[in-house]
């Protein structure tokens, strides 16, 4: 049972952060289908830092540098979306898909080249080992092994909720996603706001990426990317109706099912049931599809999302 809670916390941390990222981007009017790719970049940068840091680095240095690297990598890669979709009016779905492919290919190439160079041409794998870094994030509280990642995620969630409802900035951001021409008419820079939205999503998804690969594992094969976590977060975001607190609840729901597929072997009752682990894997997707079917009639999606901003349009 302890394991179930542990996995649920980790998965919800990932889903909350990445879904919040998606939310900020969509609220500003840009559909960020490249979350998956941004996560891969964030994960790779974070893992690289953990591998490269010297053995005697303190826990604090490891934690802060890893998070910073992941966040920066996420923000930089999100610029690829921002530039194409905001300045060049590119098709947002296409660019998102391209970024996902780009990220997996780039991460594989970079990690393989890194391994080859480090091992003098004996290791061609796309795998990174970061046991030391993984351990630095661990602490125990009341008998349950927890990770600093979860604390970081909880903090960011609180910040996001406050920011989303209480600041002028977020109000302006949301205006740009609903009716950019009206926002521009009262002096808000639509391009600026959309850049801000996409970069925030890069920041959050980058951190989400490193949590996904490092909180429960101490090695990662980069040829798998992040195995659909980014897409799952998009579902969480829609399920959460583009609102931070609802996103948090739906992320936890998704995370429970996701963890069940990982740990059901250890739970006597579930193991006795004649259900294969794959079924638990399918569950989140089936549930979200059904829930979407019942809730999408009055969807609260930002009105202007997916439409390139055109100043002259009425």
């Amino acid at each position, binding site marked *: 049972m302890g394991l179930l809670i542990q996995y649920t916390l980790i998965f919800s941390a990932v889903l909350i952060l990445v879904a919040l990222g998606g939310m900020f981007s969509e609220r500003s009017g840009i559909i960020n289908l490249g979350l998956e790719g941004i996560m891969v970049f964030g994960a790779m940068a974070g893992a690289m830092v953990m591998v490269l840091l010297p053995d005697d680095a303190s826990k604090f240095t490891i934690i802060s540098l890893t998070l910073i690297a992941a966040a920066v990598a996420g923000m930089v890669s999100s610029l690829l979306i921002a530039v194409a979709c905001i300045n060049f009016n590119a098709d947002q779905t296409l660019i998102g898909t391209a970024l996902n492919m780009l990220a997996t290919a780039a991460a*594989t190439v970079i990690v393989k080249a890194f391994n080859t160079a480090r091992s003098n041409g004996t290791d061609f794998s796309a795998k990174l080992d970061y046991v030391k870094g993984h351990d630095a994030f661990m602490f125990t509280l009341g008998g349950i092994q927890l990770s600093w990642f979860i604390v970081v995620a909880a903090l960011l969630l609180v910040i996001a909720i406050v920011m989303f409802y209480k600041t002028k900035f977020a109000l302006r951001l949301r205006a740009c996603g609903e009716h950019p021409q009206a926002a521009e008419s009262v002096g808000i820079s639509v391009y600026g706001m959309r850049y801000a939205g996409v970069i925030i999503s890069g920041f959050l998804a980058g951190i989400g990426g490193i949590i996904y690969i490092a909180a429960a594992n101490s090695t990662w094969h980069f040829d798998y990317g992040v195995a659909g976590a980014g897409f799952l977060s998009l579902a969480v975001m829609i399920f959460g109706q583009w609102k931070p607190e609802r996103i948090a609840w739906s992320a936890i729901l998704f995370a429970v099912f996701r963890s069940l597929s990982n740990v059901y072997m250890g739970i006597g009752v579930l193991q006795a049931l004649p259900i294969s682990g794959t079924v638990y894997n399918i569950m989140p997707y089936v549930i979200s599809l059904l829930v*979407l079917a019942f809730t999408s*009639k009055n969807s609260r999606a930002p009105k202007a999302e997916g439409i390139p901003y055109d100043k002259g349009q009425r």
Partner: protein
Amino acid sequence: MEEKTSLFKKSGFQTLIASVLCAILGILLGFIILFFMNPGHAAEGMFAILRNFFKYANNKTNLLYYLGSTLVKSVPVVLCAEAILFAYKTGLFNIGCAGQYTVGIIASLYTGIALEWNWFLCILAAIAAGALWGCICGFFKAYCNVNEVIAGIMLNWIALYICNIILGNKKVMNTTKSETYNVSKNSLLPTFLSNLFGNNTYVTIAVPLTIIVAIVILWVLNKTTFGYELKATGHSKDAAKYAGMNAKRNIILSLVISGAIAGLAAGLYYLTGIEHYKIASSVPGMGFSGIAVAFLGGLHPIGAIFAGLFVEYITLGGQYLNTNYYNPQVADLMIAIIIYLCGFVLFFKTIMNKPTNKLGLKPGEDQANKDAADKTAHKKEV
């Protein structure tokens, strides 16, 4: 407007130029990446990718054999691109193509290995499976207002896990090698001109069928009332409804046809026996490469054939790289860059329109028309 337009002003020609530009830029960037990874061997590496199977230029049988393999391997990606562009022309972004392709794999391999059906029935099963998966997506879109991109993504993963359960069955899966058994003899597709391609038995009727499918799509979209209705529904659901079309039926039909093509793609690939299915932890990339190919081909059914051949040529070219210096995924990276650049096609086009307008006879009028056309293109609902 009855005005003679120069070649450069024709939209089709501009798309062609833009796509070629994307490809060239992508290759250039690929070269730069190779250069950063290992400056000494960059030129050699790029040459290996581009020369590809022409390495065997002095041995005609080998050359034709590998040419045949490239053709066979580009069949699924071209068909996936056709599926995506068909849906795109009708206003739907069928990202669920990957899932429809996956259920196509399930149907064709299960009927081909466990049930040993005739190849024709296997193909039909694959088409039906893909169509069913497209139908589910279309149903959610039409009746529940679920965005087809999100529904498609969910269905992709559901398809993948179902695939792993069904094809993980002992009847189909060789558990020691963790890949599927060979396709049974009477389920293999009949060969087509295989002695022309150095006795490459993988060259089957799949190759000509792909070209036929592309032509049929071109015809349906541009020359039939049915195609017109689908396109009209994509442009504006409400206007189509007002004009007396059954908008919901049209949305579902678009996705059913798109899914059927994706299913066909899987059948025509796996029933050649060129590749065995392995249990995977992520959705087959074919559907996503299809998006790339569709856009690189300028969203034109015939353009997609050439784009598909090009993409497959580069991807396979990665295997000719010297693994001491580079890894084959560099080719995937190049493809991803090319797709990313495809997003800028609209921008390339506006640039191309500018100089001709300055030299042209009446500047203002023409540009206004173009802008209006571009704007309607933007307004599609995502």
